[in-house]
């Protein structure tokens, strides 16, 4: 059993090692300088090959944070409704639907985004390509919605009944109890859910590649197409050779580091938070 657990953990080290070996030629050749200072990404140009990753890193973070910003209010409302308002039957079925949403393949989300969300955005902002930062955030928001809802619900449920009774004893209404007692107590658990969702969203590939438009640029509006790092790797890895490939591995390494930071933050918070209200 212990061995199997170590295999699982060791796998991550193996992958990081693999990324490092493949990224090494680019690191060694000192290509990382242009990586962060160059504004353009045009690896296939014969005349002027450029490898600037800043726009794609920006895109990854923008899409991810915007997705969480869209999903958090909905997910939290959903969790509060489930915990305090919904009749048990409705709660059970709605929760099951959300659990089902986790199992929907990313490519299906992406295709739905391309065929439903993108035409809606074109109607909203005529003349834009439709495939955009906003389209990616909306699709990604739906993908992380169940994570946020389910972890928040668990956090709400972990709030001790004694606190609710005390609030009732003080004559507080339901809304006031939720707002002033439950949410502050469940903050840690909800925060952990949000970080998990961030980590999930930043690595998502198949859905964003279909709806983001994949232009490597820093967007000026929500309707501009963007290209997250994962999209670039998915679009170019199978076709890249030599130094271009090494740079794609560098980009992958940066993404793994970002996720590692998020995971580190999650465990730091978990160790830090009050065990009674830790939730998920």
């Amino acid at each position, binding site marked *: 059993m212990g061995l199997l657990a170590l295999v699982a953990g060791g796998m991550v080290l193996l992958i990081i090692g693999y990324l490092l070996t493949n990224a090494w030629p680019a690191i060694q050749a000192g290509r990382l300088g242009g990586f962060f200072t160059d504004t353009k990404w*045009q*690896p*296939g*140009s*014969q*005349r*002027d090959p450029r490898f600037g990753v800043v726009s794609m890193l920006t895109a990854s973070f923008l899409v991810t944070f915007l997705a969480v910003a869209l999903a958090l209010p909905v997910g939290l409302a959903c969790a509060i409704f489930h915990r305090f308002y919904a009749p048990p039957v409705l709660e059970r079925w709605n929760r099951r639907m959300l659990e089902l949403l986790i199992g929907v393949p990313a490519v299906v989300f992406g*295709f739905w985004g*391309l*065929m439903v969300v*993108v*035409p809606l955005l*074109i109607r909203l902002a*005529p*003349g834009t*390509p*439709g*495939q955009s930062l906003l389209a990616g955030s909306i699709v990604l928001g739906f993908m992380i919605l169940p994570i946020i809802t389910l972890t928040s619900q668990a956090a709400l449920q972990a709030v001790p009944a004694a606190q609710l009774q005390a609030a009732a004893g003080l004559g507080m209404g339901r809304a006031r109890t939720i707002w002033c007692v439950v949410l502050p107590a469940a903050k840690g658990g909800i925060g952990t859910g949000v970080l998990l969702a961030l980590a999930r969203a930043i690595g998502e590939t198949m859905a964003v*590649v*279909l709806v983001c*438009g*994949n*232009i490597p640029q820093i967007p000026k509006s929500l309707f501009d*197409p963007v*290209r997250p790092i994962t999209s670039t790797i*998915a*679009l*170019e890895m*199978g*076709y*890249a*050779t030599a130094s*271009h490939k090494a740079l794609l591995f560098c980009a992958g390494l940066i993404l793994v580091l970002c996720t590692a930071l998020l995971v580190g933050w999650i465990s730091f918070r978990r160790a830090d938070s009050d065990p009674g209200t830790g939730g998920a």
Partner: protein
Amino acid sequence: MSKLQFLRNLAALVSLTVASCGKKETGAVVVLTGSSTIAPVISDVAKRYEAANPGVRIEVQSGGSSRGIADALSGTADLGMASRALSADEAAKLTAHRIAADGVCVVVHRDNPVSELSREQLISIYTKKATNWKDFGGPDATIVVANKAEGRSTLEVFLHYLGLDNADVKADVVVGENLHVINSVVANPNTIGYVSIGTAASEAKGGTPIKLVSTGGVAATTENVANGTFPITRPLNIVEDALTSPAAKAFLDHLTSPAINDIIQKHFFVPVN
């Protein structure tokens, strides 16, 4: 499930796995990698070939022409699939066998009245010198330019025809697969994109609301690719190095024979052998 039952199932599973591994080792395996345009054709050919030649297994993996050429050179694959001609230094180490021809055609939405664009018009659209469909007899709407991602052979063929470097292209959307281009055109009727004629013709025939645009005064049809009049074309090649195994050689002979022409036509490509 009882523990005993579980163990019995496990034993069955293990013996099954061992049996299938054993089977794998007795027959010859031919591995082909490369162009995502050619891979579906070869997969179909392989199914029929495996049925007619028990003991031979054909493995097909797509990943782009450049990968096919690199894998054939490194020996990772027995044969490479490349939907472009070989460069001079590639041709020094590999032999290319043409199994079919394909055209790259421009696609727009079926509701777009534009049905013909010249090479010069395409250049002005793809470099954003012209940005409105009304300049080409279309509606008063901004043109959404879809380009392919780096490394795709359709991109190379198309840019080679236009005489452009990819850095010159000003795209609104960058996509990977042929079907993603077509879906982008369907999702946004102001989009212009380019795909393999085979894919476009089969999608248009299947009812997808797209239109194949004539280029250089020639209609984008498989017939015009076959008779060599359509200007944006590419060969579908199987490449081999000097160390091809007998099993791979036999499969290659099959691929370059007229026996597979029905499958090639089914995929809307043009037979050449």
